């Protein structure tokens, strides 16, 4: 089974080494001089955070990842725009774009996807989020009831896939409809964006069983994950579908275990996380970097330990790894140079990874 390693674009900000504060690197929203008056700063307001995000995309590609994920964050820049923005700078990456089904018309989303696929050779993938609580969703103009969220996602995916693959195509549901739609000619036959969904409730698993290509779990100890995967698989078998397994995970990987725990502890202190560590396992901490990366769980250890853990997850059934680490630019190189080769070597000894 082919493994894919997907890095992340931190859409609402990032941290630096030894400095856990979240901020947008390179952002020059105002002309405030960040240097002391005695030092020249030539930038003015020339650059903003998007320039840095573009660098992260290129780093992700150069470091050998298969893809990059653009998370949906109400505080951050919009993922579809960022996807287009980095598409030509990172010429081979799968671009996993996250959004909610309240985005707009499913046909319009599919149509935008068509152009994206035409321009990138089919590299767009979709991650559809169930969204926040009712209050949060209302701030995004979404008044759909909680109990209808999964149905809306299912209809969205059904309609999008329908117009992408059939013409004429018609559908009438509760949330979306189309009459004699469908893309033809040069717009037809484009790669359907693989759909990534997530969650652990029965409704989440049932939805993925019906429509997902990949179901993404938050990292948990391997034994627990195996149970979750088995649960998903039984749902998928009932729906007569195959769903691949993804894992969402932050990394603090260093040359030595000591360095890794030193940095993890410093991060905790700088972000004023008090009380005991939420350790799912010795090397697996919950909630450490969530406010920056969105990941609920962080894996901490030496390159050997981290790659061994990833290998164990892969052997348990994970094929998509949705990874992140702060700072995202430098860590793309670190993980790409020191961790991924160890994992790939284990599964494909003596072979170069296909370009």
């Amino acid at each position: 089974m082919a493994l894919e390693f997907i890095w992340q674009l931190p859409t609402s900000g990032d941290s630096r080494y030894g400095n856990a504060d979240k901020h947008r690197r390179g952002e020059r929203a105002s002309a405030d001089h960040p240097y002391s008056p005695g030092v020249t700063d030539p930038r003015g307001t020339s650059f903003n955070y998007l320039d840095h995000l573009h660098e992260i995309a290129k780093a992700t590609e150069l470091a050998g990842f298969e893809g990059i994920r653009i998370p949906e964050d109400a505080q951050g820049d919009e993922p579809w725009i960022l996807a287009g923005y980095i598409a030509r700078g990172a010429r081979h990456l799968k671009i996993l774009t996250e959004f909610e089904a309240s985005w707009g018309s499913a046909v319009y989303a599919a149509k935008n996807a068509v152009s994206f696929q035409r321009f990138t050779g089919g590299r767009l993938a979709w991650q559809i989020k169930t969204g926040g609580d009712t209050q949060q969703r209302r701030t995004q103009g979404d008044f759909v009831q909680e109990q209808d969220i999964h149905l809306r996602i299912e209809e969205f995916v059904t309609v999008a896939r329908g117009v992408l693959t059939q013409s004429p195509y018609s559908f009438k549901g509760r949330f979306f409809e189309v009459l004699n739609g469908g893309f033809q000619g040069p717009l037809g036959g484009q790669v359907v964006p693989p759909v990534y969904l997530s969650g652990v409730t029965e409704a989440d698993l049932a939805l993925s069983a019906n429509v997902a290509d990949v179901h993404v779990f938050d990292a948990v100890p391997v034994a627990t994950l195996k149970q979750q995967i088995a649960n998903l698989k039984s749902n998928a078998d009932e729906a007569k579908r195959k769903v691949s397994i993804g894992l969402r995970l932050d990394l603090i990987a260093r040359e030595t275990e000591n360095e890794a725990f030193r940095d993890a502890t410093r991060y905790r202190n700088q972000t004023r996380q008090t009380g005991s560590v939420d350790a799912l396992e010795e090397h697996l901490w919950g909630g450490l970097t969530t406010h920056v990366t969105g990941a609920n769980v962080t894996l901490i250890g030496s390159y050997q330990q981290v790659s061994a853990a990833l290998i164990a997850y892969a052997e348990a059934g994970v094929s998509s790894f949705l990874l992140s680490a702060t700072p995202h630019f430098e860590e793309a190189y670190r993980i790409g140079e020191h961790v991924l080769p160890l994992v790939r070597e284990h599964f494909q000894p003596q072979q170069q990874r296909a370009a």
Partner: protein
Amino acid sequence: MTIDIFWRIPTHGEPSSHRSKTPHRGDWFPGNDRLRERGLVGSGEDGFNYIDYLSEIARAAEISGFQGGLIPSFPMTDEPWIISAALARETETFRFMIPFQPGFLNPVTAARMTASLQRATGGRALYNVITGGGGPAQLWWGDSTGHDDRYGRTTEFLDILQGVWKGGPFSYQGKFYQVENAGLADPLSREEYPEIYFSGSSDAALASASKHADYYLSWLEPFEQLRQKFDRVKEKTHLLGRKIKCAVRVDIVARPTEEEAWDEVRLGFEGLSKEAIESFGRGDGGDSAGAARQWGNRPATINSYKDLIFEPNVWSGFNLLRGGQTNGIVGSYEQVAERLDQLVQLGADAFILASTPHLEEAYRVGEEVLPLVRGTSSAPALRAVG
């Protein structure tokens, strides 16, 4: 205040001249959107595809002095949001005019996409708000909302866009959209609100435009009819205590001499089939008032391209050659510039021009015609050198 002049990005492929539908550029099959055909920059197998051609046009337009370009969106085209984001870093001053129908996007999503596009381009995104032509084409998009309701929806959409733009918190209970404590997050909320060009010819459209639009955009119509339309729009808007400007979207065929320009039209017309000419101006089942205003002029029989000339330097058969509106300006560089100035006199404050092929013609029109346009200046325009 000076006149803004935009170009156009052809999102549906194009022929390499007005004279014939082939050779063509892009992978659309000329005359049949159900098929696919490789034209120049259409194969994708060599790593290049249609976006690379569009990138060239955007660059040509900005180098030649256009403000930017309209990027049309229809069922058979590529899509402007993606094109704009992809070309953000390949252009410096090009302003991306994005047409979209408010019914297709959640207004808060649209606000975030726009603000992020402003951040990606340094403030170069603007809108052309369109509200659709109704009929089967509308249902193709999955939109069954009726004509006047669609304009009501557009108004609500723009109300919310404006409300959330500077950060809110903004709440709104509309017939089509609701938001509660909404607002763009910092630093998205610091971006400049996009200029809005607004299209639509019906009374419902004018009502919506008067409230929100910066520019009321019209196709070219008979000049006197257009003057009255612009006067009506400006008066209606004035009653709401706002100012609105007017813009004309028009194709042009400009050459060193008038004869050469009409030759392009004549050769294109002579290449048409009898069936194409016969079905010309017969309507498409939609409810667009603008389309009706174009086709009202159809003569009973059309034997020559000259039968479609109703005003000096205006040809009313462009729809036959490449789809879209029927009227276009044809003449020498000086004549085309004069017609544009005439439109300025009757109330146009901006233009969206285009010609075929969009790449070479961006250079030609930018280099030869634009310097001759006086716009709002009373001084004689520059004469082209040589």
